[in-house]
């Protein structure tokens, strides 16, 4: 689905540029998790930064912590949330 991969590409761009991750886009997969040493290793401040980035780039709001906890499980889950709420 081209739309899906486009969202994924833009999300990777946000992750790398806004959060200044020192990795290449090809190292971020759909099943990559956001937290912990096996994932992107984000912290709570990064999450808030990501919320702002997603709002600016896609116009999709994540309004509360409960939603954030559901959405920020993996890269694929974020892409799905953006697609479903755009």
């Amino acid at each position: 689905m081209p739309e899906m991969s486009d969202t994924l590409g833009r999300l990777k761009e946000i992750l790398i540029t806004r959060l200044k991750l020192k990795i290449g886009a090809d190292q971020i997969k759909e099943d990559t998790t956001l937290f912990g040493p096996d994932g992107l290793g984000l912290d709570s401040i990064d999450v808030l930064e990501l919320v702002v980035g997603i709002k600016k780039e896609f116009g999709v709001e994540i309004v509360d912590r409960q939603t954030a906890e559901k959405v920020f499980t993996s890269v694929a889950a974020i892409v799905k949330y953006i697609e479903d709420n755009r």
Partner: protein
Amino acid sequence: MTDPYPLPSTILPHSYPFILIDKIIELAGDKQIVCLKNVTINEEFFSGHFRENPVMPGVLIIEAMAQASGLIVGNEHATMTYLSRVNDAKFKRPVIPGDQLIIKSSVIQKFPPLHIFEAVAYVNDEVVSEAEITLTIM
């Protein structure tokens, strides 16, 4: 005439000599604030920054922005506030003794305890500094 807004010192956990906001000029609910700081030659930091060429340190402008931002939330309930992140800070021209610093800050995202603010500081309607400030507000 009574000022419609409370003194910053009654809201902020800060005290002398570290209150960098003199007064609140405008407060739009829990969203936006405009504050004033009169920068005088008597500020202690001017004796060393710099002796021959007094300039307000950029980090103190950031601190003033953080305090203005903290006042938005602090006006609603008592808080303890910590600076958590500063993004995209710019200092466009020096702030010197005699300048009246006007600081505007707006909440752009909140996820308690984290709050992100967009802050801009002006002197004579000219932008002197801007930054995105993240505070942890307990």
